[in-house]
């Protein structure tokens, strides 16, 4: 278990030893702040709903950017060989990297609590929906990060890793928006497979086990696929 945290600590440090961490945090806060103040000042709505709605789109770009280096860069530089010949299990490495990416995302998410505090000062805040929103953002971030890490394990090229992760997340996001084009029986399936569908459920402030199971499955499946691919020791 210790190996997991050692790997995670190194990853977090490398986010903040390089510009990645700062750029991600700054841009994320800048964009989410813009959406938030837009609705606050231009529409006169004291709500963090826009923040939650925009998060999916922001994550679609930010999460692949955070995770694109996780394995692709280790493979390119060959450091993967040293890492995987140290006494840690592959899954600890994967989980450690996931934890680090999740940690960076959570830092960004926690900083948006400023908006919640602002709204709470101006008027009543919907506690349930806000809690659901933050839980949703965390789970969505975790799911996207696990997808991004899987994409990163597939290639030695960070840009390719970014694009693969972006496409997977985009498709999972769009699935419940194309249901009108497919027969009813398939529509239900597509809807259930959609990231956004489950995220929107959580935004309503209702924590349903099905949604939790969905996010857990995405994380588990991506991580297993990553582990499977790594076990073949790609060059």
């Amino acid at each position, binding site marked *: 278990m210790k190996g997991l945290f050692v790997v995670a600590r190194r990853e977090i440090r*490398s986010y903040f*030893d*390089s510009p990645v961490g700062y750029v991600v945090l700054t841009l994320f806060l800048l964009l989410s702040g813009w959406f938030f103040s837009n609705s606050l000042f231009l529409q006169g709505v004291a709500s963090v709903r826009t923040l939650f709605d925009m998060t999916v789109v922001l994550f679609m770009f930010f999460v692949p950017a955070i995770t694109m280096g996780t394995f692709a860069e280790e493979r390119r530089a*060959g450091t993967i*060989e*040293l890492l995987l010949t140290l006494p840690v299990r592959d899954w600890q490495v994967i989980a450690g990297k996931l934890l680090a990416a999740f940690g960076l995302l959570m830092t960004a998410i926690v900083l948006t609590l400023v908006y919640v505090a602002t709204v709470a000062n101006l008027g009543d805040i919907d506690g349930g929906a806000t809690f659901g929103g933050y839980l949703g953002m965390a789970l969505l971030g975790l799911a996207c990060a696990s997808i991004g890490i899987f994409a990163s394990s597939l290639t030695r090229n960070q840009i390719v890793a970014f694009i693969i992760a972006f496409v997977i997340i985009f498709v999972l996001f769009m699935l419940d928006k194309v249901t009108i084009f497919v027969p009813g029986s398939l529509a239900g399936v597509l809807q259930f497979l959609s990231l956004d569908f489950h995220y929107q459920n959580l935004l309503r402030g209702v924590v349903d086990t099905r949604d939790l199971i969905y996010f857990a499955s995405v994380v588990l499946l991506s991580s297993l696929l990553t582990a499977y691919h790594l076990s073949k020791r790609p060059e």
Partner: protein
Amino acid sequence: MINVDRLTKTFGLERAVDDISFEVERGEVLGFLGPNGAGKSTTMRVLTCYLPPSAGSVSINGLDVTTDSLAIRRLIGYLPESTPLYPDMTVRDYLRFVAAIREMSPGDERTRIAYVVDVCGLTGVLSKRIETLSKGYRQRVGLAQAMLHDPEILILDEPTSGLDPNQIVEIRDLVKSLGEEKTVILSTHILPEVEASCDRVLIINRGKIVADGSPESLQARFQGDQRLLFGVEGDGAGVEDVLRSFAGLSVLDHSVDGESSMFTLGLTGTNDVRPDLYRLAVENGWVLTELHREEARLEDVFRQLTSEKAYSRAKA
């Protein structure tokens, strides 16, 4: 200590390592010698549990690489080829990271880091980021990392590649001193290196072991015919006839260079005839300018065994 039994590793249709077996005793310094792409690195990657074997078995201290991989990795210190390191970390942070993953106690960590930093000469660069270091320093960081947990077995893949001659000598001396108590396996395609630091050499070509033995025994085995250089003052008139009459000796070449002449002599067998040649010169009143026996070098052994010709001969 290390037991490799009929190990085969294939990548698709390519057999990188083809049915090799060997054993390494505790305290032995073993050199893997072979041309590029011979299967040295692949063998090392199997030993370090990075790649699983396709067939055959590898056990270290009675532990099997496929089932006890974690325990084996704790025993081994490994320096992969081309020394991959995290460029954005400082040397100190990197060593601490390795110590943490190896679950060393804080006390151990401090003393061992101090030790490897001292032995590998890293004191001046501890706070520098690895990306700013020269190739030689990176190599030393890689070595420090491999030695950090005082492993029983060190596996070093081309530890001296990219170093300057002084650094090569330093690393060789280090390997030699490590070999006094540790088991060391190192790979190289530089011949003087194995002669300088290895007790035993495995020559690998196209995934197969083509020779196994001490550097001296390999040289002896492949010695075959000797060559001698024999120089006398004057134009060497009459000398050739006398030499020809000497038992077993043949004159391969005769050249005159100004005041002296030089003979290249061939001799079958390994007996040393230099004292006889000296006496011959004294008896005939020749003034000797050169008397030299050319040793069969490991380089010749290597060439003989790994050339295309040797490969096709072995196949036929």
